[in-house]
């Protein structure tokens, strides 16, 4: 049985894992890079250890250091979180070789699902529908190009090694192919350390529907229903919800059964996610299996009532699945908004900076998973996610209204965030109607327009702050409490 877990990750997911472990009576070890010394996950964990300089490849991606640290600190298990090494099967093997428990599926399943070619073939054999595509480790760019022409444009060029949209490009004609292919390959190399990319048919106007799944080492496999993650920017998810407005009970059953077959085919023994594209005709296609906990896992926890982190740790301990498929029910509606340090009005460019003031949202039906606190530095070295707001309601409308309140209540001063943008998405009539496709932002550009600009009001308030600074030494606590009159003029 696991007694002490080293968390090979940072930010909000490290905090989430630490909390689950504490609840189970398991000790936790946080690791941190030189610039993360003051980070929230370090403060939350029972123990912590410095693992290297800020660049991820010298710290959070340094396999040897992570294993050495686990052994040194007396941990008997490693949890990889998401991103970083979470889907690296070689690390999975090395952790096990060192005599530690790795909180992830077995190496064979991870390796097979991590390769687009082998997972594709496995899914075809298991009767799960797939999209036409081409992958090769040895093919030249010209071969890829002629395959792309054969598949028919538009095609998608994607990194073989990981998800998250990194390294992904849509190519609409043969002329664009070479540039897109090279850029995709470079991004794949820098994000995952592996430049291999593949090409597949691009499904126009799809929805992104994924199924949360779980398997154990006793051949039990279940799904915990879907999540719709169609609101994406740069192919990365921004807002997720469950249930999806697009699934009928029948389609939900069919897709859920396909997701279970997908993991049964590889003897999957952890929690994971089977991703599908769903087109307008109700046809769905297997995309990939994410062999890790997902960023958006909380919305499934809210609607099924099951703690996925605890389930994942129990399974790693060799326990038998405590649930049968018929035990799992969906109740109510849940939405997640990812709060990134980025500028929605400038093509979602990462921002960064120091969090000068942080106020989390509260109230009925609100959950807040955060990696930041007042004083946190958002560095350019890592993914710009700061926190996640999760709302729950008995209906979709209630979940939306609660999320809108939470987005206004959450304050993160000092770092530009996408919260006002997400608020406008939640107010958009197509979103409210459930017309959500992965090209939602392209089709609804008005969500980028700020119709209620309060910059003048903000400027006026700034003059009050300024006045406050000037009068602070005169024993006047706040300028607007002064009886009488004061005046600030541009000419003074």
């Amino acid at each position, binding site marked *: 049985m696991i007694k002490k877990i080293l968390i090979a990750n940072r930010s909000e997911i490290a905090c989430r894992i630490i909390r689950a472990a504490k609840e189970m009576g398991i000790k936790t070890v946080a690791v941190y890079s030189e610039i993360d010394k003051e980070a929230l996950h370090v403060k939350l964990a029972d123990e912590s250890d410095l693992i290297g300089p800020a660049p991820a490849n010298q710290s959070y991606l340094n396999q040897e250091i992570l294993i050495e640290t686990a052994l040194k600190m007396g941990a008997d298990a490693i949890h990889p979180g998401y991103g970083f090494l979470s889907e690296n099967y070689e690390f999975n093997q090395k952790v096990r070789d060192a005599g530690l428990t790795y909180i992830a599926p077995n190496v064979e399943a991870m390796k097979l699902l991590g390769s687009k070619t082998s997972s594709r073939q496995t899914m075809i054999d298991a009767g799960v529908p797939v999209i036409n595509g081409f992958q090769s480790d040895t093919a030249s760019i010209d071969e890829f190009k002629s395959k792309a022409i054969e598949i028919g444009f538009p095609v998608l060029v994607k990194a073989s090694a990981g998800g998250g949209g990194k390294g992904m490009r849509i190519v609409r004609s043969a002329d664009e192919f070479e540039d897109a292919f090279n850029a995709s390959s470079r991004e794949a190399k820098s994000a995952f350390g592996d430049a291999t990319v593949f090409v597949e048919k691009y499904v126009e106007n799809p929805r992104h529907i994924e199924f949360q799944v779980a398997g154990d080492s006793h051949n039990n496999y279940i799904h915990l229903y879907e999540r719709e993650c169609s609101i994406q920017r740069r192919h990365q998810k921004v807002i997720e919800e469950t249930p999806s407005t697009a699934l009928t009970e029948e389609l939900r059953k069919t897709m859920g059964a396909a997701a279970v077959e997908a993991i049964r085919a590889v003897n999957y023994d952890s929690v994971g996610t089977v991703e599908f594209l769903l087109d307008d005709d109700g046809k769905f296609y297997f995309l990939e299996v994410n062999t890790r906990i997902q960023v958006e896992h909380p919305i499934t926890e809210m609607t099924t009532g099951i703690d996925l982190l605890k389930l994942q740790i129990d399974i790693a301990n060799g326990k038998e699945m405590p649930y049968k498929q018929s035990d799992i029910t969906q109740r109510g509606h849940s939405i997640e908004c990812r709060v990134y340090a980025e500028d929605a009005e400038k093509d979602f460019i990462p921002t960064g900076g*120091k969090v000068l*003031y942080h106020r989390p949202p509260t109230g009925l039906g609100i959950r807040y998973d955060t990696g930041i606190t007042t004083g946190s530095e958002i560095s350019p070295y890592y993914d*710009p996610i700061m926190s996640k707001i999760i709302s729950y309601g008995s209906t979709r409308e209630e979940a939306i209204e609660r999320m809108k309140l939470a*987005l206004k209540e959450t304050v*993160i001063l000092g770092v530009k965030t996408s919260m006002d943008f997400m608020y406008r998405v939640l107010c958009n009539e197509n979103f409210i109607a459930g017309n959500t496709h992965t090209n939602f932002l392209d089709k609804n550009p008005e969500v980028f327009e700020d119709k209620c600009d*309060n910059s003048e009001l903000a400027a006026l*308030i700034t003059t009050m702050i*300024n006045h406050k600074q000037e009068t602070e030494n005169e024993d006047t606590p706040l300028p607007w409490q002064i009886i009488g009159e004061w005046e600030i003029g*541009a000419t003074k």
Partner: protein
Amino acid sequence: MKLKRNNEIIEVDAKQMNGNLIGRVNDDELKVTILSSEENIVKLLYNNEIKEAVYIEDRDKYYVQIDGKQYIFGKVEDEEDVIAGVGESEDIENIVPPMPGTIIKVNVAVGDKVNEGDAVIVVEAMKMETNLYTRITGKVTKVNAKEGDRVDSDTVLVVIEKEEVENKE
């Protein structure tokens, strides 16, 4: 007083009378009733709506969040600071990365002609490649970066000057 936001100068006059704050921002009149206030937070009535503003000051900047949106203002000491701080005019554009990163590709060289909307440089930050575009049509007069360079967010990578500039003065 004068504030700077998105390279624009904003002139603000304000006076308080009996709990009401009356202001002029550029040419617009604003009337605000202060309902309550505490450290960093002020509740107010504006255009018949109750709003909450959360604010903080840090070094040379003010941060104010209203309805989930953050407004950042720079302090303006005098006229010279305005020009130095902005660092560009309609005729000259300085291409600066949004945050520290690595140069992936430089698409232009000194003397090149560029058109509004051209991607002049590709920067990678937070594992994402970002194209930096020019907002003006003109000629590249300076290139301060090469592939592989690590750059800070205040580094001017490329300078572009409008073609008509040559005819002036």
